[in-house]
């Protein structure tokens, strides 16, 4: 038997109390059979699922995560699943930055009456993850490299910049910002992508520095980026008070993590 054939994915499912968890109960009452790979955590609303917890699941080595809520417009809490949709869209972008397939995160909507649909979603998602293989198979990263990237991604998602942006999406896209300007969906998505990339890169830099003072050149080698890009991010980290300048080494400035 090859490794491919023996791989049984471990999948986590976050289900909201009112719709998707009820659909899973209905699938049970209807005795619909589906593979046992998915283990469920009940939350009151899919909007309770903090993106950092999704990343934690991958850090812990789980192969896939599904977040299922009520259909849009029927959320028990009126607007919860819209927040889920936006937050998970960004989480998928973060996964892409890590090098993982965003297909490892499934976001979908199931009503309390859709037991069969729930069973189908579980079946299909289990198959999808089975095909994708163990976590990181889609990258050429070493397990330790992948782990560091996932930690960086989780820390980026815990940062206020991304959270603030994602939280304001509706307001910025549908209403107007404080300057009376409206942002188009494309512009907003572009902005989020850039922010995700930048915050992820910054977190990788921080993680790579550990407790030592390093030159920009050295950091650039560790995070596999150009010194120019690293410098830009270092300056931003310095502004946030997360690193401090310690001197010049050769012609490359040297930094150390602040407070460490």
């Amino acid at each position: 038997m090859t490794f491919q054939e023996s791989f049984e994915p471990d999948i986590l499912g976050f289900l909201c109390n009112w719709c998707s968890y009820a659909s899973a109960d209905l699938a049970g009452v209807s005795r619909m059979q589906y593979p046992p790979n998915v283990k469920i955590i009940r939350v009151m609303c899919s909007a309770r699922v903090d993106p950092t917890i999704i990343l934690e699941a991958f850090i812990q080595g789980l192969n896939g995560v599904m977040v299922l809520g009520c259909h849009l417009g029927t959320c028990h809490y009126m607007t919860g699943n819209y927040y889920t949709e936006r937050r998970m869209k960004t989480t998928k972008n973060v996964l892409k930055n890590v090098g993982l397939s965003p297909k490892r995160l499934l976001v979908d909507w199931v009503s309390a009456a859709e037991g069969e649909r729930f069973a189908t979603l579980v079946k299909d998602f289990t198959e999808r993850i089975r095909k994708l293989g163990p976590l990181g198979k889609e990258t050429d990263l070493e397990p330790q490299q992948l782990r560091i990237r996932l930690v960086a991604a989780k820390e980026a998602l815990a940062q206020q910049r991304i959270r603030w942006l994602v939280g304001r999406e509706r307001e910025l896209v549908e209403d107007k910002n404080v300057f009376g300007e409206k942002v188009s969906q494309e512009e907003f998505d572009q902005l989020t992508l850039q922010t995700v990339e930048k915050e992820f890169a910054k977190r990788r830099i921080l993680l790579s520095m550990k407790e030592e003072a390093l030159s920009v050149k050295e950091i650039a080698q560790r995070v596999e980026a150009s010194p120019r890009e690293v410098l830009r991010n270092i300056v931003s980290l310095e502004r946030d008070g997360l690193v401090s300048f310690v001197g010049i080494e050769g012609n490359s400035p040297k930094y150390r993590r602040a407070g460490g």
Partner: protein
Amino acid sequence: MNEVRVGVFVCHCGTNIGGFLDVPGLAKYALSLPNVVFAKDNQYTCSEAGLTEIKNAIAENKLNRVVVASCTPRTHEPLFRSICKDAGLNPYLFQFVNIRDQCSWVHMQERERATEKAKALIRMGVARAVLLEPLEETEIEVNPCALVIGGGIAGMTCALSLANRGFEVKLVEKEDRLGGTLNSLYKLYPANEEASKLVQDKTKKVKNNPNIEVLTSSEVKEVEGFIGNYDVTVRQGEKERLFKAGVIIVATGAETLKPMGMYGYDGENVVTHMELERMLKEGRLNADMVVMIQCVGSRNEKRVYCSKVCCPTALKNAILIKEAKPNAQVFVLYRDMVTPGTKYEDYYGKARETGITFIKYSPERKPVVENGSVRVYDELLGEELVLPYDLVVLSTPMVAHRNSTDLAQKLKVPVDENGFFLEAHVKLRPVDFATDGIYVCGCAHWPANIGESISQAYGAASRASIPMSVGRVKTEPLIPVIDEDECSGCGLCELTCPFKAIQVEETEKGRKAKVIAASCKGCGACGAGCPQRAITMRHFTDEQLVAQVIALAEVTH
């Protein structure tokens, strides 16, 4: 005392779980988990014997966490929580694990893998249970005054019902008189009483009731607060009135669709039933050939629903025309006659006996109104008929009031895809909103006839009087807690919360978010988005959720 002592009860549920999983094995496994000091399998954990075992085990083993692995929390959590409470354990220290609906029933052919999954689920449940914290429900006072929005038959009935129980009522009506849609109607099916008489009787009772204050030509401008303590602003012309209310009833009714551009509608020779009612009321009807067309603008792609009251209305008006003018010919072109209930089916029979002709058409071949005649393909006869007419009457559906979405936003309650107000649960809570303290009755919710509107109004009054009679309501302890040192007062949580349950206020430490426990529904959307991660969602903390994730990872590799 701080030692966490978990008891795990694994249920066979007869053979529902026991027949497909190794239940004694699961209990044994549970006992091996950290902090678990007691584990046992029961035939039926929810039976008297099972519940007694939980109680005894709590006392004998000094359990301070209880985990039941059985069916679904959606049906059985309240029961097990109450048993914990009886045994002196805070009910929020109870954790449910679903190994039936989401395990034994859905993996019936894979005993081994299903048992492994159940182990993982129990491990996850125990991991969370260890971190559970006792929570207390708090109580707030309820102002014994009801705001009833809408002075039609539903609103008036509801106001009277509440006032007769001794509660103060503010009845807000946007028109200059009470009565609503009834003011436009002539006679009411199926007993043919005069609509105007019903309005007069009700209006008189409302106006003479000392507990009711009627505010006509008024509209609700703003509603702030939560169950028991609403601050209401009503605009009355130039003036504004402010008052406090404990509960709110939405009885704003509906409108009937104006069939602009349909079937040659002109309001004179082609009219709606509403317009026909006025003609009948004013004795202006002068037509010997009347053709009524049902389902105009309803049960189509744009409006998929059946408005329900139009078929009996057409029957009533057809009968009234025949009674007034026995020689008149009345044709009713229908898709399906919807007349459920004994009275209404008899009504249909009566209409047939009266000599009214019913012609079935299909939506694919709709009738065509031409100059002086209606062409219709009779589905049953299988041929086209040409019916000359003096008057065509169109049965148009009730549609949501144009201001319903606006009001819904002010009250923070939902409307459905058609703009009608959406109840909390179609069967279990038909006149409540999901938001505590707000109720709905009459056509604001869905097309209803007078009898149904009155029943719903009594229902809403009864539901609304519960918190007012008790005088206090319990608030959900599943609420967010703000770490004020972390909170930057950015206001994103306030923006996120659909219930206005979290608001930024000036404090000694600067702008800080504050939770209004009575408004909070416990979804946790605020916490998962907080830029400072300053919000902890009680009972669903990050720590608890992550503990479950880690517990799962531990068994998978």
